């Protein structure tokens, strides 16, 4: 793995985030900066990444670990290039989320929490994402995919594969 080091652009972003808070309160920047770090360093937070963020914000490493382990969006182990986070809470369940989860499992040949052998897809079940009226749904990267059907899932998988091939 490449050395853990933000680009100049990201470092400027960190400065801009810290400036949102009163002097000495840069700890408040921790969650936004962890988001930046997860994006920049492969979609998950390694111990090295967390230590780097700690040094950057002048925090003790443990202050970073305890936050990273609390919030469900921070991945503490590697994930596939495309992370399918499918909602399984009540409103999605009554709209057929269980069937969508089963369909993805079969289609990709993986269980929940697993990654495909080619490293492209990880399936994760999550709790309510606030898209109950547009259920069933999942988060893919920065956006939501809503009103899921098996056909729509096929399209999404094909879209990811073609993106991966293009890179």
């Amino acid at each position, binding site marked *: 793995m490449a050395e853990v080091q933000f680009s100049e652009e990201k470092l400027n972003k960190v400065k801009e985030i810290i400036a949102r808070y009163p002097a000495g*309160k840069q700890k*408040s920047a921790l969650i936004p900066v962890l988001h930046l770090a997860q994006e920049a360093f492969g979609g998950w937070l390694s111990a090295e990444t967390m230590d780097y963020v700690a040094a950057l914000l002048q925090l003790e490493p443990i202050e970073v670990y*305890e936050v990273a382990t609390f919030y469900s969006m*921070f991945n503490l182990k590697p994930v596939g290039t495309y992370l399918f986070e499918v909602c*399984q*809470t*009540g409103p999605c369940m009554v709209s057929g989320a269980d069937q969508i989860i089963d369909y993805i499992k079969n289609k990709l040949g993986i269980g929940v929490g697993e990654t495909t052998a080619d490293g492209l897809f990880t399936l994760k079940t999550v709790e309510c994402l*606030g898209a109950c*009226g547009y259920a069933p749904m999942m988060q893919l990267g920065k956006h939501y995919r809503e009103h899921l059907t098996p056909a729509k899932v096929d399209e999404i998988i094909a879209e990811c594969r073609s993106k991966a091939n293009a890179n």
Partner: protein
Amino acid sequence: MGRKLLLDKAHIEGIRYYDTYRSNGGYAAAEKALKTMGPDAVLEEVKKSGLRGRGGAGFPTGLKWSFIAKPEGVPRYLVCNADESEPGTFKDRYLMEFIPHLLIEGLIISSFALGANSAYIYIRGEYAWIPDILEQAIAEAKNKGWLGKNILGTGFDLEIYVQRGAGAYICGEETALIESLEGKRGNPRIKPPFPAVKGLWQCPTVVNNVETLAAVVPIINIGGDEYIKYGTGKSTGTKLISACGNINKPGVYEIEMNISVEEFIYSDEYCGGIKNNKRLKACIPGGSSVPVLPANLLLKTAKGETRMMTYESLADGGFATGSMLGSGGFIVMDEDQCIVRNTLTFARFYHHESCGQCSPCREGTGWMEKVLKNIEYGKGKMSDIDLLWDIQRKIEGNTICPLGDAAAWPVAAAIRHFRDEFEWHVAHPQEALTRNFGLAHYADPLPAPVAAV
């Protein structure tokens, strides 16, 4: 058609951007408040309006504002709670995505009333595309002189910042939100002191929901007295309801709080009736934490009166026969839905989301999930139903924050109203794996629609 105060202009093309928002009457309330009213007059108007917190608790907003401490030389903060994580609730997302300037304007007026020079919008991390929309709106507003130093020459300064969370239901609880904003785990604080005295960075802080802050705009525009006329009793103004589940038209609706639950579910203006001509079995009217009601108690109170979409009417009968308006997360279940399975998903949700600080919640939520799983998957015992009842009672009221209550209430209400369905699961473990219990005596009192031939 019901009158609207928040979404009346939501469908105008380009309303997301400053110029369109402004040319359609936007920022008139901010101008009025800052130039002609002064902070105290704004507070009085909000008090007069009877506005209640739209996040779920329904606490009077004006009263909450009046508690803020004003020690000399100590900054005050306004925090907008955009954590929106209550299952069934997706109204704030709609406001922020489609009409962000309404929130920005609400934040300007509210910060002015509170004497806050910095405001933070804490938005749930999963709404990852919305901070860009909000930050663009903030930049536009700043560019036009509505933010920054000496706004409109009044001497009032304000900056608004957007902060993303990272996946934690508990951060919708205001003190957990503050902890998270300080860069910590979202563990709720012991109160007192309340945020109004010691909040963000130990300074006086008010935390308000997105919809609450947006509602301040029409209140200033039309005045508190006029606002009261939209609604009934202590349910003044309009409320956003996010409707989901087995209905024909899921979505976000703005209602005047004077329509019946029946009208809301069955009229074409709102939910458009139950999907696929099925019958209504049950409904959770205010987000997953509030008690589920069977159809017969949802449409009429135990006294036989028409149930209305108001704070008072939905709560009529207490928890024995009523529920709550809560956050307005309206989850409808048809005759094919299984109450045990639905309750299990919520128990799993609360177990997942418990911060782990208080043992009744940390241990109790996991225990309830386990017992419910056994019942759902054919391994339940009759005594499990009483065990569940016992566990939820020991969580309720015994935790630092209301997550414990929120976890207990759905389980309690499911057993209270649907006990025979739980017993059927236990008595018929094999059958329960292949079919659902159905409607039984909870049938909605409306005539079943005739299926189209």
